[in-house]
C-alpha cells in the first residue's frame, strides 16, 4: 500500500475528500480523482499554462502545486466558471473574438484572464501581454486572444456600469 494521505479540497465551491499520495500535484488530483479534466496536462513544468486554475482568485500552474498545499483554499477550475449553463463573459469573448482554435490552451488563458481582471479591471494591452506571458498558444499567434481579453474587460466594465 502506498503512503496515502486523506485531504480535503474545496473546488468550485464543493468540498471533496480524497486519499492521495502526498507527492500528487493538484493537477493530477483534479484530473484523476475528481474527474475535472478542464485543466490540461502539457509541459508539466510550469512553462505552458495549460493547467492553470485559480487559488483564492489567483492563477497558478496546478502542475507545480501539491494537492496537499491547496487544502483550506478556494480552488476554481474552468468547470466552475460558467453559472447555470451560461458562459462567463470571458468565455463568451474568447468564443466571439476567435481566441479559440485547438482549445488546449483556452481554459488556462480564460482563468488567467479572470485572475488579471480580478486585480486590474482595466488592463492596457501591455498589461495583458505581461499577464499572459506564462501561457503558450501555438495556434492563434495571440492577436485574437489579446482582442478577446480586451473585449471581456470592456464588456465587464460596461456591465458593472463603470
Amino acid at each position: 500500500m502506498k503512503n496515502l494521505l486523506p485531504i480535503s479540497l474545496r473546488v468550485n465551491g464543493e468540498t471533496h475528500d480524497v486519499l492521495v499520495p502526498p507527492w500528487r500535484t493538484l493537477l493530477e488530483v483534479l484530473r484523476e480523482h475528481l474527474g475535472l479534466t478542464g485543466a490540461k496536462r502539457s509541459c508539466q513544468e510550469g512553462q505552458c499554462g495549460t493547467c492553470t486554475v485559480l487559488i483564492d482568485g489567483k492563477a497558478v500552474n496546478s502542475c507545480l502545486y501539491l494537492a496537499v498545499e491547496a487544502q483550506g483554499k478556494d480552488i476554481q477550475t474552468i468547470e466552475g466558471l460558467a453559472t447555470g449553463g451560461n458562459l462567463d463573459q470571458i468565455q463568451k469573448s474568447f468564443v466571439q473574438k476567435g481566441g479559440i482554435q485547438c482549445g488546449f490552451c483556452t481554459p488556462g488563458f480564460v482563468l488567467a484572464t479572470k485572475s488579471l481582471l480580478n486585480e486590474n479591471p482595466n488592463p492596457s494591452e501591455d498589461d495583458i501581454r505581461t499577464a499572459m506571458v506564462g501561457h503558450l498558444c501555438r495556434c492563434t499567434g495571440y492577436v485574437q486572444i489579446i482582442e478577446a481579453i480586451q473585449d471581456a474587460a470592456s464588456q465587464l466594465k460596461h456591465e458593472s456600469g463603470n
Partner: protein
Amino acid sequence: MNDPLRNEYDVVGRPTPKKDGILKALGRAEYADDISMPGMLHGKLLRSPHPHARIVRIDISRAQALPGVRAVVTGKDFPGVKYGNLPQTRDYLPLAIDTVRYIGEEVAAVAAIDEDTAEEALDLIEVEYEPLAAVFDPEQAMLPGAPLVHDNATANVSAQVAFEFGEVDKAFSRADYVREDVYETQPVKQGMLEPHACVGQWDNSGKITLWSCKMSPYVVWRQLAMGLGVELGSVRVVQTVVGGGFSGGKQEAMPMDFCAVMLSRKTGRPVKIVHTMDEVLTIGHMRHPMKISLRTGTDKNGRILAQHCKMIANGGAYSSIGGFSMYLAGAMLNIPYRIPNIRYEAKRVYTNNGFCGALRGHTNTQICFARDSQLELIAADLGVDPIEIRHRNALQPGDETSNGFRIGTFAFDECIDRVVQLSGWREKRGKLPKYRGIGFGCGSHISGARLMGHSASAAEIRVQEDGTVHLSTGSTDVGQGADTVLSMIAAEVLGVEVNDVRFALVDSDSTPVDPGTFGSRVTFFTGNAVKRAAEDARRQLAEIAGQRMKANPDDLVFRGREIISRRDDRQRMSLKDAVRWGAFQTGRLVISHGTYAAGDEKIDFRTGHGNLSPAYNPSACAVEVEVDPETGQVKVVGFWGADDSGFPLNPLAVKGQVIGATVMSFGHALYETLVRIDGKVMNPSFRDYKMPLTTDVPKLTDFQHSNVITWEPEGPFGAKEAGQGAGTGVIAALANAIYDATGVRLNSLPLSPDRIRFAIKQKYETERAGKESPVAAE
C-alpha cells in the same frame, strides 16, 4: 456568381465564431488524455538511450513481476511488418526488434494500474545493447565508409529527387548576372500543446479500436492494420478533439498507438498512453533541416532566367513522408515567381537523429527563406528596387510554371502593393534609425495536393426530422476551424443556420473515408465535397417538397430554414416539415453524399511535372524589427501581410490562420531549434525550446493582415487555402529586416541573438581594421 466585394450570401463570407468554441471555453471538449474507461490501464514506453545500437537481449521478467504491472510488450510481439507513408519508403516498426537508430526510439512498452507503476517498471526492463557507430551529419553520412543507418539505403540516401524544367544551362549562359548562396535551416518541432495521446482497445471479438488525437485518422487506420498484420476491417480509429497538430505524429500511426492496442490485447483492458512533453520534443517528426545551395541567373533588370537548387535534407532515422517532401521542395521553387528554367537536385539522408516529416508550410518555408533572402541581394547588386524586383518576377493569373502548375487566380502583385501601402514601406525602407530595419518577403502555397495515393475527399449529409443537418467527413478539425467552415458551406446550400449543422468527429466505422487534414486541402477539397453533398440533399428535399407543395422542384429556393417557391413566395414549407413528410409518408430519407477529386490530372513524380494543386495562394509581408546590438536580441515591432485566399469563407478563422502561421514563422526564424549533441536533444522542454510568447508579437495596431479578395472558380464559394501560405515568406522578411537594421546577413536559421551579436561584432571589427590599416584590408 457572388460579387465578393458585396457578399450576397447568408452564411459564407461572414465572421463566424468557431462551433466547438463553447465546449472548449467550458473546458468540456474531450481530448484523448481526458478519456477514462472502466478498468483502463496506463502505458509507458521504454526508449533507446543510444543513437545507434544492436539490441542483443531484452529481459522483461523483473518488470513483469512488479506489482501493478499487467503486461509488457517488445518488438517481437508484433509481426515484424514495416509500415509507413509511401510504399517505397516503409521503414517503421511498431517497436524496434534488433536495431535502434536514434535516441528516443521505442523499444518496449508497459501497461500498469497507474503511470507511476508503469514508469517504475520501465527501469526494470533490462536491454543489452551493442552500440554501433553513428552518424549525425547528412554530408558525412553520404561519405564512403560512413555507418549505414539502414542496410538497404546506399550512402544513407533515403530519397533522391532530380528535376529539370526548361533549358537551364542555356539560360545561365545568357544571364547577365549569376550568384550562388548557401542557406541552412534547423530542426523545428510542431510545438502543439497537446502531447500525443491515445487509448487502445483490442477486444475478444478481434475488434481493434484506437481513440486518438489524429489529424488524418484514415492514414492511421491503414498504417495500424499494416503494422499489426490484421485486416483493415478489424481496425477502428476514432478521432478525439485535436489539441493542435501542425502535421507530424498526429498525421500517422506512432509506436504508442501500436503499443496501446497490443497491451490491451494482452490484458483485455483498454490502455491509455500519453507522451510527456520531453518525449514529444525528443522523438521524431520535425521540420527537415536543409542545406540549400541556390544559384540564380537573371538579366540586367533582375528578371530571373534560371535557378539551380541543390538541397541536402537531414532526414533522421526514418522516412515518414520525406520522399514526398523532397518532391515538394522542388515543386515550390516554381511559385510565386516566374522562373522559366529550373534544375533541382535533392537528397534526403538518413542520420541517427529524430526523424523528419511534414510541418506547417511543409518544405516551402525553407525554400522561401532561401529564395527571398537571395532575391534581396540580387536586387541590391543590380540596383533594382526590392519591391520592383518582386513585381518583375511575379507569376500572373493564366501562367503555366515550368513544372506545369497552372496558375488561376493569383493576386500576387496586389498583395505586394497592399503590403507596401500598409507598412509604410516607402517612408521606412532605408530611413529608419540605426538598428531598426524593415524587410520584405513573399511566399505561396497550394490549396490541397493531387497525390498518387488517396487524394479525393468525401462528405455525407443526413437531414434530420427536426431540420438539423448531420454532416460527416473524413477531415478533421485541428483548431483551424474545419468544423465551422464546412458547416457554413452546408448551411449556405441548405438555407439553414450554422448552428443547425452538427459536425462529426471522424470514426472510421461510420464517417466517409478521406486522406485527412494536411496540405491546406480541407476547405478546398472537403469543402467542395460538402458543397456537392449539400446540393444533393437540397435536390432530394426539393423533390419531396415539390411533390407536397405541387410545385416544380426547380422553382424552389432554400432560405431561412424554409423551402419557398420562386414563382409565388406564399407557397412555402419548412425544411423540417419536408423531411418529416418525406420520411413518414413517402419513405424517402434525405441522405446524401458528395466527393471531390480535383479532376484526373496526375503528377509525374519522376519528372516532377504536373499541376499539383487546383489553386495557388500568393502572399507578401513586411516586417519591422529593432535589434539590440549589445545582446543581438531582435524585437519584432511591426508586421503587415497580405494574401490571396480567394473569397474568405470565414474571415474570423482566416485571420486566425494567417496570424497563427505568421507567428509560428517568427519562432522558426528567431528562436526555435532543437539543440542536439551526438543525436541527443539537449532542450526537450518548453523552458529551453523557445516558442513565441505574447510579448514577442507586435502591438495590435502594428500587426495587420489584409486579404486581397479574389474569386477562385474551382474553390467552394470562391475560396482558397489560408493556413500555411501566409507564413512562408515571413522568415526571409525577418532576415531582410535584420540586414536592413544591422548590415549583417545571416544565412543560417535561427537568426538567434548569439549569431546576430557575433556577426555585428565581426562586421564592426572588419570595418575598423579596414579604417585603421588599409594595407591589411587588401
